């Protein structure tokens, strides 16, 4: 049972997909302009992640190695399209808020990355738990970053005005440069937490530091 809990909580901090594995950076920067968009994107991506992890894990012995990427992408794209249709039909405001980043979940590296790194090598239940954990970590990060940026650029969180009207808003935080600032800040925060809890993970660059190190056969194998 311990290992199941470990799998679940992995994605929250130790292997946080955005801040530790540095996957899914594009939607992170784009949708964290407001806390609610971050939450919506996180939930949509988590749903896709769990479903695709379950299916890919169930088929891991069936899909030949040669065609694993086309197969994974087809499965992931199907779930994203289903989510997109459901969101367009029942949550139209979210569709407008996420815009093009909703269909872009197909190429969200977190989902394909976890499929390669975890689901293709582990049992269904474990893969599902990993999906939940990673999704939670992703959503949590998006909500925190979104709240931070929304608070400073608009003075509200989830639309609720927090800062008094008289305070000038730092609107730069709501656009691209602000996104990068926030990203760097949060990464520094995670490293600080690691140091404080004596969990400092040495980060290296190149093949040594790549989170896909275990799955990858070596330099240049990505083709």
């Amino acid at each position, binding site marked *: 049972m311990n290992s199941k809990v470990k799998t679940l909580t992995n994605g929250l901090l130790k292997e946080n997909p955005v801040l530790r594995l540095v996957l899914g950076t594009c939607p992170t920067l784009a949708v964290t302009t407001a806390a609610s968009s971050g939450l919506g994107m996180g939930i949509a991506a988590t749903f896709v992640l769990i479903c695709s992890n379950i299916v890919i894990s169930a088929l891991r012995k069936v899909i030949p190695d040669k065609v694993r990427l086309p*197969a994974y992408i*087809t499965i992931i794209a199907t779930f994203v*399209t289903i989510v997109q249709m459901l969101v*367009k039909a029942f949550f*139209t405001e979210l569709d407008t808020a996420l815009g093009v980043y909703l269909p872009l979940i197909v190429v969200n590296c977190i989902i394909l990355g976890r499929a390669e790194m975890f689901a293709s090598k582990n049992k269904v239940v474990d893969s599902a738990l990993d999906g939940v954990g990673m999704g939670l970590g992703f959503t949590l990060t998006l909500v925190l970053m979104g709240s931070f940026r929304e608070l400073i650029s608009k003075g509200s969180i989830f639309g609720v005005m927090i800062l008094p009207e008289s305070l000038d808003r730092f609107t730069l935080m709501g656009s691209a440069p602000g996104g990068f600032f926030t990203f760097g800040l949060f990464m520094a925060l995670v490293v600080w937490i690691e140091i404080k809890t004596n969990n400092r993970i040495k980060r290296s660059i190149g093949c040594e530091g790549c989170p896909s190190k275990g799955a990858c056969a070596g330099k240049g194998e990505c083709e």
Partner: protein
Amino acid sequence: MAKNKSNTWENVVKPIVVLVVICLITSALLAVTNYFTAPIIKEKEQQAAYAAYFEVLPGADSFTTVEGFATTGVEEAVKADNGTGYAFKAVGKGFGGDVPVIVGVDMDGVITGVSFMQNSETSGFGARLWDGSEDGATYAAELTGKSGSVALGQDGVNGLSGATVSSTAVVNAVNSALNCFAEVALGQEATVEEAAPATLEEAVTALLGEGAAEASAEGAVAAYTSADGALTLVAVEAEGFAPMTVAVSFDAEGVVADLWVDVSGQTQGIGTPAGEAAYTDQFVGLSDAAAVDGVDTIAGATLSSDGVKTGVAACMEIFQTMKGGN
């Protein structure tokens, strides 16, 4: 032999089979989801498209599209289901292309609201209609409450200062909407605008009427006088981006009555607006070369605009010679 067979199965057949099965299952899943969500999505999209109509006809609760109307200048007409009136998406020809205008008309033929959609008019001028500045709202308010037909400079309709062409386009669009209302709500005959003349012969008929007689004029490509002798038309070849025929009709005093320009050789969308009424109407009523020179050129279409100006000035000169009697 057996090893070969299993290799083929492993390397060729199995991957194909697995992929095909995966694709079949995913397609089925997508088809099912689409079946349930497509109608809901379509309805939501239609509500959003109608959002503009709700803005100009506040009393309405839902709309049905009106089919089969013939009035030119109107792209879409919808009728309010609760009988409060109609709304139209009308288009006028502006400086940079189409100027879309949404007009709401109540059952008495009175305009209930006007709103402007995105257009390609010049920024700071015609673009003030939709860029959120107050001028657009003021103009919309000037048009609200009018009925029958509207005209610039009449009845409090001032338009945008410094953007006459765009303001005229709006007036044309609003009139198209009112004409369409007359057609669909009151059953009157549709006002269908004729297509612009494409050749010099067609232009002569359009500008002078039937039975125009040929006249002689030195330096002109052709010259005609109308059947009643009141109007004279002079046509010249001018140099724009490419050669263009400019034909101007004058009244007895030498004042420009109308003109036609063959812009088929100019760059589509850039130089061709030099031949459209929005630009050529500025020459109507002028009678000397200095006034012609004072007309602005279209931004980004200097050669074509200058071609029209030199053409009109040349026609004027030839007309003076004709009248003066050489």
